[in-house]
């Protein structure tokens, strides 16, 4: 038996051991205090991130309404079907049901159902009735979330202005993208607490942050005018077998655009489907083969789509031709090189340096004053006016009129004016620019500049956006747009209105004349490049009432067959338009006007 006695030093050492242990435990306790007090927030945040799964709830996108409150772009409820791998109980049943209900291949669904992920999207934009049916199967692990899809009740009406949205309801072109920030709203979230395998922990419930719906955008477009203008444009396009027809109708004093038509339009409800027009535009596809039959590459298809979506009024430039004479005339009058009574003689051509530039009337207009020269759209006279001003003066008017800047319209992708560099303008360039050739401009730029010349020199900003309202109808944002004054003097503006009224009442724009309404305007016929292609653009700018313009409209017919003079084919389009919309807008009263 071991009977050594416990020595004093043993006791001492045991006590030392104890206190060393206590000291270490106190240190560890200090570490715990550090972790649980100082670092608590940090680790708690990290842990919460780990435990919570987030599902987003889409916000309803704001509607787009016309000036009368008619909904042009709306939302439709659709469903997104997804599967949660860990919660699936009867895998084969899930695959079978999704196959039959969604009409997708079994391989596609099986791959997604068997994929080990927290949540896997099977299909979005599923019709609500199908979504409800799938929900009624009550399959574990299958989630049907309701969602919104953009819907355009009037189909292709104003498609290139309104634009469309993509898979995540984000604006892709047009007003949809321009006003994205107002329309999109704010996504909400559903937070669920899950264990390490992603299974929801029942007693922790869900916390939900509700989405904030987007604001409703009110635009100046008038559905009635837009649809009538679209009808007219299709008529003109079909009658003249033209490539495309554009019509813009704008309020002169405010810049509010009532209609902007570019036919052929496309269907914003199926924006990625090539229209028949887009397909027949492919050279060699006269037989009208479908997109599948053509075997387009992705890039070819994308190029065709981009072309189909283009808004010719603002994205494309063209040689304006004689409508540009409004600008030359205003500049000439403003600079004083010409007065309405100045007389000219037109022999049918004019020689500038070594070039002989013909008038469209080859026999010449003979002796005429400036008013008649404008009525006749006489090229030699306008060349003379341009040359009289000279490069520097003429160019300074371009700047003064705002021609070299973009208009600032609230649509994406506005093209800039393509003008000669000032230093490169010689007499020949000056001469051709004077009657609207050898440079390019967007239709909207020309229209806005013409509007500012007849509107006492006030240059407005063309626009669609008027205001944004929330779901209760309260105005959350009102848009205002800059107006530049002093483009031309009020006198020049008054003279221009008179001359342009004469163009319609007695001159080349006679086809736009409406009994009893004072209409001003200017026609244009320009040959597209290359010059010998025999392709023309016929256009007409008209405004009413001529003495105090309220409405300005423009029609552009691209590549018409047969008769191609703007005065013959574009002016009647604007006349028909005015005949219908002026009474509608209260600018013309048939009863009173027909008596006078």
């Amino acid at each position: 038996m071991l009977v050594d006695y416990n020595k004093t030093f043993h006791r001492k050492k045991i006590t030392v051991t104890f206190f060393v242990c206590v000291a270490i435990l106190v240190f560890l306790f200090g570490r715990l205090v550090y972790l649980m007090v100082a670092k608590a927030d940090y680790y708690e945040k990290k842990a919460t991130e780990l435990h919570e799964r987030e599902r987003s709830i889409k916000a309803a996108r704001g509607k787009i309404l016309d000036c009368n409150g008619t909904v042009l772009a709306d939302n439709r409820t659709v469903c997104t079907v997804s599967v949660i791998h860990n919660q699936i109980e009867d895998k084969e049943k899930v695959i079978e049901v999704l196959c039959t209900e969604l009409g997708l291949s079994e391989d596609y669904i099986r791959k997604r159902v068997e994929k080990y992920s927290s949540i896997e999207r099977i299909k979005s934009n599923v019709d609500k009735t199908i979504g409800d049916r799938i929900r009624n199967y009550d399959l574990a692990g299958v989630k049907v979330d309701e969602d919104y899809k953009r819907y355009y009740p009037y189909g292709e009406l104003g498609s290139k202005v309104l634009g469309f949205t993509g898979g995540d309801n984000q604006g892709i072109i047009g007003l949809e993208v321009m006003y994205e920030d107002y329309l999109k709203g704010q996504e909400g979230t559903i937070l669920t607490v899950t264990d390490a395998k992603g299974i929801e922990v029942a007693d922790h419930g869900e916390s939900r942050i509700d989405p904030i719906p987007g604001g409703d955008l009110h635009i100046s477009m008038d559905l009635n005018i837009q649809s009538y203008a679209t009808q007219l444009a299709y008529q003109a396009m079909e009658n003249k077998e033209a490539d495309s027809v554009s019509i813009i109708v704008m309020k002169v004093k405010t810049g509010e655009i009532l209609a902007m038509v570019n036919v052929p339009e496309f269907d914003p409800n199926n924006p990625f489907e090539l229209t028949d027009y887009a397909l027949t535009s492919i050279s060699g596809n006269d037989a009208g083969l479908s997109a599948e039959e053509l075997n387009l590459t992705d890039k070819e298809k994308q190029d065709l789509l981009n072309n189909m979506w283009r808004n010719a009024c603002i994205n494309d430039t063209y040689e304006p031709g004689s409508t540009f004479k409004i600008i030359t005339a205003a500049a000439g009058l403003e600079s004083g090189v010409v007065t309405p009574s100045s007389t000219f003689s037109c022999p049918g051509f004019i020689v500038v340096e070594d070039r002989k530039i013909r008038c469209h009337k080859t026999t010449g207009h003979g002796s005429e004053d400036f008013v008649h020269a404008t009525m006749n759209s006489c090229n030699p006279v306008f060349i003379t006016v341009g040359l009289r001003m000279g490069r520097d003066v003429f160019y300074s008017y371009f700047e003064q009129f705002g021609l070299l800047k973009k208009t600032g319209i609230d649509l994406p992708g506005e093209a800039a004016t393509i003008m000669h560099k000032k230093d490169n303008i010689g007499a020949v360039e000056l001469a051709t620019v004077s009657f609207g050739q050898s440079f390019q401009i967007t239709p909207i730029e020309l229209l806005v500049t013409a509007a500012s010349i007849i509107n006492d020199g006030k240059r407005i900003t063309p626009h669609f956006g008027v205001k944004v309202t929330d779901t209760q109808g309260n105005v959350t944002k009102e848009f205002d747009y800059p107006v530049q004054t002093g483009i031309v003097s009020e006198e020049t503006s008054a003279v221009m209105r008179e001359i342009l009224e004469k163009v319609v009442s007695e001159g080349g724009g006679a086809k736009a004349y409406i009994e009893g309404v004072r209409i001003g305007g200017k026609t244009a016929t320009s040959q597209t490049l290359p010059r010998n292609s025999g392709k023309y653009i016929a256009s007409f700018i008209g405004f009413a009432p001529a003495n105090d313009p309220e409405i300005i409209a423009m029609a552009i017919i691209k590549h018409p067959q047969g008769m191609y003079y703007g005065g013959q084919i574009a002016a009647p389009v604007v006349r028909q338009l005015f005949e219908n919309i002026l009474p509608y807008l209260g600018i013309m009263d048939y009863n009173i006007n027909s008596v006078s």
Partner: protein
Amino acid sequence: MGKNKKKGQSEYFFDYSLLFIVLFLLVFGLVMLYSTSSYEAAQKYGSSTFYLVKQIKATVLGLVGMFIIAHIPYHFWEKFYGLGYIVSAVLLLLIIPFGYKSGGAKRWFRIGGLSIQPAEIAKICMILFCAVMICKMGKKVRDFKGFLLLMAMPLPIVLMVWKITSNLSSAIIIMGIVFIMVFVASPDYKKFVVITVGGLAGVAAIVVAIAGMASNEGMHYRFKRVLAWLHPEDYVSDTGYQTLQALYAIGSGGVWGKGLGQSMQKLGFIPEAQNDMIFSIICEELGLFGAIAIIALFVMLIWRLMVIANNAPDLFGALLVVGVMAHMALQVILNIAVVTATIPNTGISLPFISYGGTAVLFQLAEIGLVLNVARKIPLKEA
């Protein structure tokens, strides 16, 4: 405590304080074990009490064993010191052919549904062996040769625990127990301080060397654990995962805790949280104050062991109690240090609280031994 009350019945001391501390730890441990393991148990085995029932069985068995041992005079065991050594060695060797593999390591025997971990048996056997050896060597313990001899004798067992069961933590604990027992038996401090300081410096140097390694490609897993300890957030998918998850649990507990049963981290984020990481769940559910309570209980436990060791009737009894005290203290300190990422991750369980049948069985046996030593303290002298 019980001294005055028992005066009339017995002239010897029964340490009720120690008994109640241990019983409290056991009950508290079972509550926390159920809280921690029920979710995983229900998912894995379909019964939320799967781990709890197994642990209760081992605990009851352990308590019975403890009371029996508490009534056997501790000198009875001294003749078995050699046998204990041999049994430990044989059991460890038998692991090679008959061991049962779980969680990547071969550490257990399965006998009739019970898993037995020889490393836990080796711990109690080594305490007995060392206590007897120190007493036998008498004054020879005091010189350097005796010191080396004492440190060398348990080495074969330590190496077997480390290499055969790849259980470095148990090996370190056995080594630590022996070191402390020799420390207590020797009158001087110098060599112990030198070894401790030298050892810590060596460990620090290794850590710095590992941290400085350019690439961790093909690195030994223990080295990786060191790196994961230094930068847990860079090893999230790997060895740092458990460390980081434990920190999340501790940190999100805060001062007051989430409340009993409210832990999120036990829902599979900390795998098998009922084992070595149970302290982190205690922190998460009961907060800093729960953690204080547990640490305080362990301090009281060690304090009672110190008191008994100091008052033991003879050196053998004192050394037995010192061994148990060293064992408890080392496990508690290392476990909390691992859980709080103060040292690299190595599997060490928390005495009486972590899940583990063999551990609780033999820890209770050790307490039984201590209780018997306490019974031999004559009240007159105490």
